[in-house]
């Protein structure tokens, strides 16, 4: 008060200043913007909530009465016997392919691009191309998978009369599909590592590999993890490329166990394919079956994301010294 009181004598400035300061922060534009942003958030949540409630509601009759059967049975043509076993098995193995191939290769490529490659027209070309590849429609990857992987497994690398449309072909195709996203997100995470951390490593006589291994990767781990697991989730939800690679929409020839390696060379199906199949069957009795399959796929993807979040939190806590 004492500070502004002399100004009162000059003119009404102090009054006006005080009125503005004490206005309680009620700029209408500011408030409007805040509500608008909140509305967008609520809209996204609402859409998700409706989807989940709808699907879970539809699926309840199946999930509550015969969950065990549903998980253990393969694709069947009778709605009260149909299950998701073959789909889950295929999706599991495809996930293994993505994790084992696209994660290490993608992270490795990102390390090279960020830490080793010098800025030249070539690296810029590579960078642009990877970004474009990430935007290529998944069907195109399906065509690629069909011509290359199925073709190779059918022909040169398969035995006589070997069958190319296998889990291996599907897994390889989706691994390639998720590769660009893995590279991009890993590269972003590596780029975000502060230069001072690298300097600290080099300053005590570390080689490039030692700096990358001991300091850059641990620091970038949360970001890399988030990106890679999101790309895995996306790959597991893809149907289009698998259709092209020959995923089966009917009964599979063999009935191998969940973890049996032999099935990798046999025909396969996956959750999205199975869902499509159930969804296109005529008759109301298939609605709960379809919904139940969707819920199972959602749970698998959510499970992966939960693991991602947990691991990320652990890495982040470590990075911040907690």
């Amino acid at each position, binding site marked *: 008060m004492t500070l502004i009181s002399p100004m009162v004598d000059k003119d009404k400035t102090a009054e006006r200043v005080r009125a503005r300061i004490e206005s309680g922060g009620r700029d209408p534009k500011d408030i409007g913007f805040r509500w608008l942003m909140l509305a967008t958030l609520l809209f996204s949540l609402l859409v998700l909530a409706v989807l989940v409630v709808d699907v879970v509601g539809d699926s309840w009759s199946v999930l509550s009465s015969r969950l065990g059967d549903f998980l253990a049975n393969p694709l069947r043509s009778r709605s009260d016997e149909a299950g998701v076993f073959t789909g889950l098995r295929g999706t599991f193995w495809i996930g293994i392919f993505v994790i084992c191939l696209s994660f290490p290769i993608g992270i490795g490529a990102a390390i090279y691009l960020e830490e080793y490659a*010098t*800025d030249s027209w070539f690296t810029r070309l590579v960078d642009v191309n990877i970004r474009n590849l990430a935007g290529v429609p998944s069907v195109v990857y399906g065509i690629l998978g069909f011509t290359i992987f199925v073709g190779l497994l059918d022909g040169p690398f398969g035995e006589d009369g070997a069958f190319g449309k296998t889990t291996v072909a599907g897994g390889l195709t989706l691994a390639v599909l998720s590769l660009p996203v893995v590279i991009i997100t890993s590269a972003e995470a590596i780029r975000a590592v*502060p230069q*001072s*951390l*690298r*300097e*600290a*490593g*080099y*300053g*005590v*006589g*570390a*080689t490039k590999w*030692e700096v990358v291994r*001991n*300091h850059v990767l*641990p*620091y970038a781990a949360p970001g890399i993890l988030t990106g890679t697991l999101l790309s895995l989730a996306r790959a597991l939800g893809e149907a289009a490329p698998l259709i092209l690679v020959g995923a089966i929409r009917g009964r599979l020839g063999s009935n191998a166990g969940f973890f049996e390696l032999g099935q990798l060379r046999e025909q396969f199906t996956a959750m999205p394919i199975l869902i499509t199949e159930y969804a296109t069957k005529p008759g109301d009795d298939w609605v709960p079956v379809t919904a139940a399959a969707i819920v199972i796929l959602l749970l698998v993807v959510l499970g992966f994301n939960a693991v991602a979040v947990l691991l990320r939190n652990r890495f982040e806590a*470590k*990075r*911040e*010294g*907690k």
Partner: protein
Amino acid sequence: MTEVRALNVDDTLSDDIVVDDNRVVMDVEDVSVYYGDFRAVRDVHMPVREHEITAMIGPSGCGKSTMLRSLNRMNDLIEGARVEGRITYQGIDLYGPKVDPVEVRRRIGMVFQKPNPFPKSIEENITFGPRIAGVPKSEFPELVERSLRSAAIWDEVKDRLKDSALGLSGGQQQRLCIARAIATTPDVLLMDEPCSALDPIATGRIEDLMQQLKDDYTIVIVTHNMQQAARVSDRCAFFTTEIDATNDRRTGQLVEYDRTDKIFSNPADERTENYVTGRFG
């Protein structure tokens, strides 16, 4: 524009009667550093003597940090950085074809402007350098204590060696970084404005520490703070900027290099005098 005085060992010594001259451990002869086509600093002559603190002072952009980072090939990390002239350590040309920059940085340690401990435990911060250099694990406990004691931080952290280094205060972090640099048993310690992110008390502790370290190490420090240079250093190099006539960009240059008392009491160059008396920069 006045011609830069080309200084070498003999020049600096001819004016004064010097009785206790230490051996030259690093020598900078006729060095210019470029970033791509841009010449950041030119024609530096600066012998660094054993068990002395050599300070580099001057206004922003005069190339002192660039010069410092060239002394242990830290500039290799910056794309396009290039050194012309000769920088030697124990008589070895650091930019010679067979030189391994990793080994150079082990012998010539560095402390940075902003404390940059690894986001790991205090202990791991110390042991990382020795570990990659192949020091056996059994020596770690003693090495950790010795390094932390040398950096005058042992008493503050001895009970929490397993705690994260990020929990330390800024001044403690910087002393930890000094301990980390010492742990690889270097000859020379380069310090790039090590106190600029610290409060006066923490700064005082680092300055005291530097005086202790002088007995075992040779220190080269870049500082913005003239008082600091006057307080801690034995020799002082004054850099300034000039417009490069060839490309109209600012290039750093060494104006004067001499004993610190001479630089601050009786500098040979008018520009030095203007700077140290506060009339410029």
